[in-house]
């Protein structure tokens, strides 16, 4: 598995070769997300006569939206619209097919490397914001919350890679799959609690979505970092996450094995 570490570290070095673009877009995104959520939730709370949602004061809602925004960025990586689907469409898959190592393994190492760099930088930015603006209402995360958060982020990054892979391998049949990826992003945003906390969803929706893969990507890690996740719930989240990882691993593997028989390597 030394090759896996080489790909992982190579991807990190490649990302760090151009850090400015990441920091500029991150700063802009966080500023926009914080501003929109601040004004939006202020208006909502004002309309309720100044009564905040249970357990979610204004600053917590803003912080939550920033955490989910960062997680979306970490998981999407740069291969959201490229990656496997682009390899198939452009014929870049050819070079990976002649390597005596797993293509998914190679791509996963790249995804992890890219996510790791994004995560470290984004987490640093989040902590700066947290300590500067919202620490009075939201105490800084303790070791337990940080542990839960890191584990769930890792599982979320892996799960998102496999969900993407399952969709992107459809490129063997449909060639262009970016529209499906946009649809997937919207679904995850809507059903995964990336815009508002899951606690604010109707109870029936919460009960259904609890078993779906969507909240595992952002809502639950965000709640863990905010110190709102019990250990039993964390264990449950990890179990559901592992189950979905196995399911999507199976789907993407089958899809790849079937699709690669149709592959013509066009474009190379």
């Amino acid at each position, binding site marked *: 598995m030394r090759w896996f570490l080489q790909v992982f570290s190579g991807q990190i070095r490649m990302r760090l070769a151009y850090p400015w673009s990441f920091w500029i877009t991150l700063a802009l995104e966080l500023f926009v997300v914080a501003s929109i959520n601040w004004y939006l939730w202020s208006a909502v709370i004002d309309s309720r006569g100044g009564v905040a949602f249970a357990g979610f004061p204004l600053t917590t809602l803003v912080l939550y939206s920033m955490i989910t925004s960062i997680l979306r960025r970490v998981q999407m990586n740069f291969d959201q619209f490229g990656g496997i689907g682009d390899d198939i469409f452009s014929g870049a898959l050819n070079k990976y097919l002649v390597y005596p190592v797993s293509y998914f393994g190679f791509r996963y190492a790249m995804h992890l490397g890219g996510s790791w760099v994004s995560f470290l930088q984004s987490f640093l930015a989040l902590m700066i914001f947290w300590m500067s603006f919202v620490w009075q209402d939201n105490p800084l995360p303790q070791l337990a919350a940080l542990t839960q958060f890191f584990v769930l982020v890792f599982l979320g990054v892996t799960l998102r890679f496999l969900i993407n892979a399952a969709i992107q391998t459809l490129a063997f049949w449909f060639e262009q799959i970016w529209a499906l990826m946009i649809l997937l992003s919207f679904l995850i945003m809507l059903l995964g609690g990336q815009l508002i906390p899951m606690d604010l969803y109707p109870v029936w929706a919460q009960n259904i979505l609890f078993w779906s893969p969507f909240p595992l990507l952002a809502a639950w890690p965000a709640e863990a970092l905010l110190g709102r996740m019990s250990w039993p719930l964390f264990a449950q989240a990890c179990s559901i996450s592992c189950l979905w990882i196995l399911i999507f691993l199976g789907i993407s593997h089958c899809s790849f094995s079937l699709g*690669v028989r149709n592959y013509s390597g066009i474009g190379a």
Partner: protein
Amino acid sequence: MGSIRSLFHRRWIDRHALKPISFEVAPGEIVGLLGANGAGKTTLIKMLAGIMHPSSGEAEVQGFTPWHRKAAFKQQIALILGQKSQLWPDLPAADSLMLLQEIYGIEPNAYQQRLNYFLDNLDLRKLLKTQIRRLSLGERMKFELVAALLHEPKVIFLDEPTIGLDIGSQRTIRNFLHDYRKTFRPAMILTSHYMEDVVALCERLLILREGELVFSGRLSEITDRYAQTRRIRLGIKNHEMNKAILAVCPQAKEGTDESGTLHLSVAKDAVSETILKILQVAPLVDLAIEEEDLASIIDALQTSKAAPRHLL
């Protein structure tokens, strides 16, 4: 209208990229795979490298069926695509090569030894730590060769390795491949549109036309078999002699230049007889006998429209 119609109803056309063909390549041999664009060369290479799955047929490379993509098979092959890179553009070549060392599980000593061989033979040592995207096309192609050959493959597929390169870089790569073959004796299949590559490297040729193998044999056989005529160029001092020559050689044609040169195209068996006849009627100041151009013969073989009847 066609574009709008295709939104609702698409028509699929089945086209055979390759028809049944059969050939073997021995260790240490370089075989040139030629054909016009779309003839099926790259498709054939992709099948043999395990990238494409054929609809029917069998192939064996080093005892493996390529499209089963066994790791042991991949350890023994290399694919070099002149128009695609396997190196990471934003990292120095050294990083990509180290990754390949891990992918192919090359022992550190063997890796260093092989790397030294490539760096010295391709004059790349000073560029090892330069970011790939900052290299010239020729330098990048040399590193592509290193990347592909680092694990000492037994079978090498080269798809237009000199495409787009300047004359000097083309020559360097040709010389390197020539020496590499002599030293390591892999089986190599080369596609190229450059005649210089074919002549310098290939002992045997396979020519494809519309997916069909139309020629398989040694390079020298092409001229022996298909170059049935020779071109004779005659320089004549006195233009008035032209008529006399044309009388003994009715197939001769007057040149378009004003030097009074006559051009004849005669069957290769009749060359000496024709020249003797001409010398009897006219004194010559210049005489040249030329074989038919190899590129023209190959072009005729690989494109049905251009192919003269006697070549097919």
